[in-house]
């Protein structure tokens, strides 16, 4: 760590060979290397990563073959080797419906270098069981999507990559331009979610419990002590889609699923009370204390509303609390000035804002000029949404965001996102080199949706809220 403060030029060869070691550097120092050096290092690193993974990951081999790429000559080649999100759900959903978790495991095995042959699937009855089995038998942690259509994507994180992810969870607690926070182990964490979540948030939570709190669960203030069930998400989405196709009556549900519906109802009924108790406990015991809290704007807003209902209005937590926000407003529209309101309510001078996604280890931190800075272990691209061509690596461009996470070793870390970004490769107004991303990230689907077109051909849209739907169906 001391090394970080002294380091001014990037050791290209060292980090090209072991880019995951970049995560050991100070977060601010890491984004201040000369852009040319970073690019040189990244080309070497991605070339090596591809050479290492190509023959181990059949899906990557297929993609490379599609593009006629046998080795990466340039960053433009690398830009072609991005997995669309759908790759992580390219299995038939019937495998889940029929409980064929052995075949699902085989499919997953083509996306990770980890040997999954020890995973016992014979007595699994649900996706949740399968996720637990992968963790238990192969040390592979899945990050799954919320799957509004009922089909979840499954991104496998191998044991070595989990270590990198853990490291990253600590790194991103540092705000850009601020000193690294000390004594994290003494700061309790507020979790606006479930205790067990197989998503990016859950992975981070697990990393903290294990490596920071050393198993001390009393440091956690979790809204829901239960589990964010992949089965609820999947089943809710599937049933909603089936109903939308006119293909559903409750009578057609498998008995084992119909039985679970009643649990879903019970869970949904208990939710408001559970939430109320959670907020009571948070404000009663943590008021005035230094806390850690990560979430999106919607979550932070919810906390503020809950606090206001309890008569709290200003400076609720200690000013040196670590508040992190990523993931945008999730489609909600808040009253003007909500950012300031939330800061005032929480009692902190700044919120550590960031941009990221489940497919990459690290969040990109926001600088004083409100731009997200890309750390050197992320090789990023702006791609033409129509042609997939990468923009030149100079100037400012708007397009689809693509990224290769060089810190990841046990799966192919190239991802083509569904986000539209405006990214600059030039020096930022804050004085640091590029690339950096403007605070205007949005989903492409958002840009194209919501118009007034009508055609006679089409399928009904699936509903969104899985649990509410299931509960509704059961009533």
């Amino acid at each position, binding site marked *: 760590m001391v090394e970080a403060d002294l380091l001014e030029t990037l050791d290209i060869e060292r980090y090209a060979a072991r880019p995951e070691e970049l995560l050991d550097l100070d977060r601010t120092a890491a984004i201040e290397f000369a852009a040319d050096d970073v690019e040189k290092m990244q080309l070497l690193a991605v070339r090596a990563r591809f050479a290492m993974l190509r023959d181990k990951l059949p899906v990557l081999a297929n993609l490379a073959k599609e593009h006629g790429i046998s080795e990466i000559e340039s960053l433009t080649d690398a830009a072609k080797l991005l997995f669309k999100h759908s790759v992580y759900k390219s*299995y*038939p959903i019937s495998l889940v419906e029929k409980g064929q978790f052995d075949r699902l495991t085989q499919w997953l095995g083509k996306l990770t270098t980890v040997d999954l042959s020890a995973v016992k699937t014979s007595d699994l009855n649900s996706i949740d069981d399968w996720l637990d089995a992968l963790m238990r038998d192969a040390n592979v942690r899945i990050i799954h999507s919320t799957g509004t259509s009922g089909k979840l994507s499954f991104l496998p994180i191998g044991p070595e990559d989990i270590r990198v992810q853990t490291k990253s969870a600590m790194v991103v607690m540092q705000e850009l331009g601020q000193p690294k926070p000390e004594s994290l182990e003494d700061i309790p964490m507020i979790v606006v979610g479930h205790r067990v979540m197989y998503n990016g948030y859950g992975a981070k939570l697990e990393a903290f419990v294990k490596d920071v709190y050393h198993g001390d669960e009393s440091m956690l203030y979790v809204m829901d002590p239960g589990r964010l069930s992949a089965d609820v998400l999947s089943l809710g989405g599937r049933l909603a889609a089936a109903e939308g196709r006119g293909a559903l009556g409750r009578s057609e549900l498998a008995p084992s699923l119909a039985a679970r519906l009643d649990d879903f109802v019970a869970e949904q009924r208990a939710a408001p009370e559970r939430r109320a108790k959670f907020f009571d406990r948070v404000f009663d015991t943590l008021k005035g204390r230094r806390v850690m809290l990560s979430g999106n704007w919607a979550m932070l807003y919810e906390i503020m509303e809950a606090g206001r209902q309890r008569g709290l209005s200003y400076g609720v937590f200690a000013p040196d609390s670590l508040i992190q926000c990523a993931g945008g407003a999730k489609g909600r529209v808040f009253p003007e000035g909500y950012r300031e309101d939330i800061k005032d309510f929480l009692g902190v001078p700044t919120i550590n804002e960031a941009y990221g996604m489940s497919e990459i280890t690290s969040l990109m931190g926001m600088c004083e000029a409100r731009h997200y800075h890309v750390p050197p272990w992320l090789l990023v691209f702006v791609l033409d949404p129509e042609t997939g061509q990468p923009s030149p690596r100079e100037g400012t461009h708007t397009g689809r965001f693509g990224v290769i996470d060089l810190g990841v070793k046990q799966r192919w870390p190239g991802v083509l996102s569904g986000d539209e970004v405006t990214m600059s490769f030039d020096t930022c107004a804050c004085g640091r080199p590029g690339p950096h991303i403007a605070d205007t990230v949005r989903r492409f689907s958002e840009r194209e949706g919501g118009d007034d*077109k009508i055609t*006679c*051909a*089409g399928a009904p849209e699936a509903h969104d809220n899985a649990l509410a739907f299931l509960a509704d169906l059961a009533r």
Partner: protein
Amino acid sequence: MENAQIERLDTSQTMFNVPLIIRGQVIENADIMHSGRGGGISFTAPDVGLHMAELPLSSPGGLTDLYALSLEEIFDFLGELGSRLTIAGNPWVEEAFKASCHTSGLGESILRSMYNNLSRSLEPRALRETVEQTIGISHLQGWVKSQLDGGLDVRVRAFGARCVHIVAGNAPGVSAMTVARNAITRGDAIIKTPSNDPMTAAAIARTMIEMAPSHPLTRHLSVAYWKGGNAAIEEKLYSYRNIEKIVAWGGMASIKHIAKYIQPGVELVALDPKLSSTIIGKEAFLDEETMRNVAAELAKDGGGLNQEACVNARVVWVESGTDDEGIAALNRFGQMVYDEIQALPAEISSPAVRCDPKLEEEVDALKIGGNDWYRVIGGGRDGAVIVSQMDEAVDFAPILANRVINLVPFDDIDTPVHAVTSYTQTIGIYPETLKEELRDRLALQGAQRLVTLGYALAATTHGLQDAIEPWRRMCRWIVDERHQPS
């Protein structure tokens, strides 16, 4: 081909002015700017909210003038109207065509052919047959007498209604068809146009005004664009005081939205969004020649009109069997189908005009990650044939478009039968004997039209549509009972 060269127009225009037409009156104020997104156009239009006093026909008695017309006069009027609707001879049709070149998923060559054939929807002979098949000409001409058991003398007549038509924008023929249906049933139509075709209905209405400005048929057609969901307009208009029926095409969201205005006195005729499929029996594999012929027929159903219509084939169930031999045969058949789709003539089919990123993402993922279960032939703008290697359709079957079809093998005929739901519109079937064998079961499952493979897109005059008979439902069926005092 020479013709196409001469006719080539500059279709680069992206800004349009859409008029509001109220019973022969053209209002061209550019009050509101509607900006296109996601492959749309930008256009200005009058603020319909400012004209709400005139837009509805406030008294149903206002339909009386239509009863001075004979049905033959109406047919003649529509025939004359049809002859005036060509791109070359009609600036409004030309402009509607240009606008569609930007909004439509159909290529320019297909659209050109569609706009030059708008008259087909107005052709008197075909309309006469359709009316006879559906409503019965005599029911539109006068009171039709019949005697019931017990001697009751009843007379029935089909009257027109005040309707709002929320038309689909994926094919211009929908607007022409709506104009014809309204004229023949002697209704008063307010056509609410969609953002993907705000011009065609207006072009037809303006042609009528030019042709016969004070003709009752001209005076009972209005055309308006407002953004669907505009409560200020819709709450006023969709009231029993102003209309009797709403005829709504497509769009689950829009139909659900409209449904809240349904009340006693306002009826909904919903032409729901639909998808179609295909069932091919084992006879298709009799020999190479038969396979090739069946592939060519399937290509028409799947690739015609760029798969933009509800009647197009998407999921294709094939009785090849799911053993290795069957799958191998199906893969070969898939290649034939792909080749035949690529060979379709430009007037009916073209490479994708606009990519569907969601669909492309799914197809690309199957190519590299789903090979155990699916084989993808082709891809990109040219379209693709996805051959399932097991008896299941792809999970994203509801979004198949841009000439991407999914062949699915089966062993047991129950498999495709059970896949049919009330959202299944047309099913193309080969051979005929299989169609006869299955038709009752398919109908009970929800299918609405069974057709010889290769003819899913055929224009017909039977007038049945989505099993709901819109012609009959656009009428108000009035009975005069003559009871004998005992």
